[in-house]
């Protein structure tokens, strides 16, 4: 999913007598799912292939995991796919956009996820679009689903993803003159150590962590 992890307690540079410090856990990666996908997912994929001739080019991966269908879409094809999903496949609602920052995925650091909902067919799918830290641009889907306006502003505010074509991409939760994008992994949580009855508890981000 994200990256290999070594060690166990997040401590480094200290004497490790447990042996766990040498532990390396490799993350499972999710490949493309094989047909049949199960549930209504095959139907959705068939319908989309029929309605959208460039399916194989635009959809790079289809992932079925934990009962959810995720279509990985090339970012330059996102708006086309979105229009087809809305108009032909009846995904009338987009429930927003959620960003995730994976600093270890070179060239694909920033990910935007769009949960879609079809009221007509009572179905849910998810679109996943990735872009790089160096070119944090993803086309806006506000012209497709107007309700994504604030959600895209939030994701811009928190992750620095620039949604091209958004009618007014400004910060929404943080102050306008804020530096940085708080929910990126390279942005520190902050916080201060607290002293109580002589003992000092470090800030949450400084505490020893288990991975």
């Amino acid at each position, binding site marked *: *999913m*994200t*990256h290999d*992890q070594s060690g166990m307690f997040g401590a480094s540079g200290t004497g490790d007598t447990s042996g766990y410090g040498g532990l390396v*856990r490799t*993350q*499972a990666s*999710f490949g493309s799912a094989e047909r049949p996908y199960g549930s209504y997912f095959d139907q959705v994929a068939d319908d989309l292939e029929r309605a959208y001739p460039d399916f194989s080019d635009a959809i790079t991966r289809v992932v079925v*995991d*934990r*009962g*959810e269908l*995720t279509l990985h879409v090339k970012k330059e094809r996102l708006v086309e796919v979105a229009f087809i999903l809305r108009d032909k496949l009846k995904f*009338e*609602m*987009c*429930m*927003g956009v*959620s*960003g*995730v*920052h994976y600093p270890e995925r070179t060239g694909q650091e920033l990910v935007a*996820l769009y*949960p879609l*909902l079809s*009221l007509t067919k*009572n179905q*849910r799918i*998810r679109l996943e679009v990735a872009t790089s830290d160096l070119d944090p641009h993803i086309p806006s889907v506000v012209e497709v*689903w*107007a*309700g*994504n*306006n*604030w*959600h895209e502003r*939030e994701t811009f505010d*928190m992750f620095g993803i620039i949604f091209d074509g958004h009618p007014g991409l400004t*910060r*929404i*939760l*943080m*102050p306008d003159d804020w530096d940085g994008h*708080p*929910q990126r992994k390279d942005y520190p*949580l902050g916080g201060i150590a607290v002293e109580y009855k002589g003992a000092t508890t470090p800030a*949450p*981000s400084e505490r020893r*962590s*288990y*991975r």
Partner: protein
Amino acid sequence: MTFDPYASSRETTEGTVFSVTGGDWDSLVTEIGEAKEERIIVNMGPQHPSTHGVLRLVLELEGETVTEVRTGIGYLHTGIEKNMEFRNWTQAVTFATRMDYLSPIFNETAYCLAVEKLLGITGDVTERASAIRVLMMELNRISSHMVALGTGALELGAMGPMFFAFREREMVLDAFEAITGLRMNMAYVRPGGVAQDLPAGMTSQLRELVKTLRKNFKDNAALLIGNSIWMKRTEGIGYLDLAGCTTLGITGPVLRSTGLPWDLRKMQPYCGYENYEFDVITADTADVYGRFLVRMNELEQSLRIIEQVLDKLDTLDGQPVMVADKKIAWPAQLALGADGLGNSLDHIREIMGSSMESLIHHFKLVTEGFRVPAGQAYAAVESPRGELAAHVVSDGGTRPYRVHFREPSFNNLQSTPAMSEGGMVADIIGAVASIDPVMGGVDR
């Protein structure tokens, strides 16, 4: 004209601009009287008694007609999503519960359902735990709708309904206190189940509560339904039809007020909602009055569900309220004491006095927490304001890699301009109240 620091005017290319920040209203009126046009920009909020919390509305007015509304939010941003990445999976519940402070149980449940999906234990959650979750959610829906109705009416100038609404809400909060030890921000729903079982005799107490509430709800219904002043302030106000709702992603009572019976409890049941009989309430007026009626009538449906849950709970007496897997069922044991929720004394006696292995297990689970297999999941519940969903990403560790909440208040507040532009300035209050935004949820 003498210089007035609170009501100064300056010349711009657009004409004379008057800035009023308080002070002498008379001098402003005199000066505006000399101007030719009536365009006024009013900053309403963020500190305003009618904006449901720290919401800022920038209104452009022509006389009393609103020509443009811009909404400013973010005053209550607390970084809850970021903070959750620095706590273990169970501790994160205590953050989630603080987002939308009127519907804490829904925040917790959405998050926990997503975590359970990631863990692959959705089917292992006991029937009793799910029933208790439903019970708590429906009680919470009542307490939340009570604030929506009470403060909504108060903002439109009706004071009586608020007294009744808070009387009812208080009783529900007392029930929460008896069950969880807390009146709000309970952190009661945990990944794998709920923190602890209902106290003895709770179901019969709650049956009494249902009876009282059913009787009391009639007071507010009698005050407001069909009340001509109330109708004049709400009928045809804040109109938003089905097409507007779908394109703006609006769910909950606002969507149901357009006539579409979309309720996740019916359409995509979770926590065993498919086992309970209830109706999805709709209205067809798509206005503030319709949303008021939807909320008002949903109260009775919540009571119906609660009654069925209580019957079910009586048959499930003694069933555990947490998954059997002891590697997930954290915290080890809790009990509600005289001073609130805490570790049960029996458990402390065991880990401190008799079993070293229990102590190690407790220590590992509490300090380290459990690991969640890598992946992502999206779980949605029907909160009092619409679809509340948690998108949770795990990298396989003991802490969430990313948690995002799809907050209905945040999304629905976008519809303020669509509901209010072209209407009267006084009707903005009604329109915003009918969305029922909770700024803690909007800003997170």
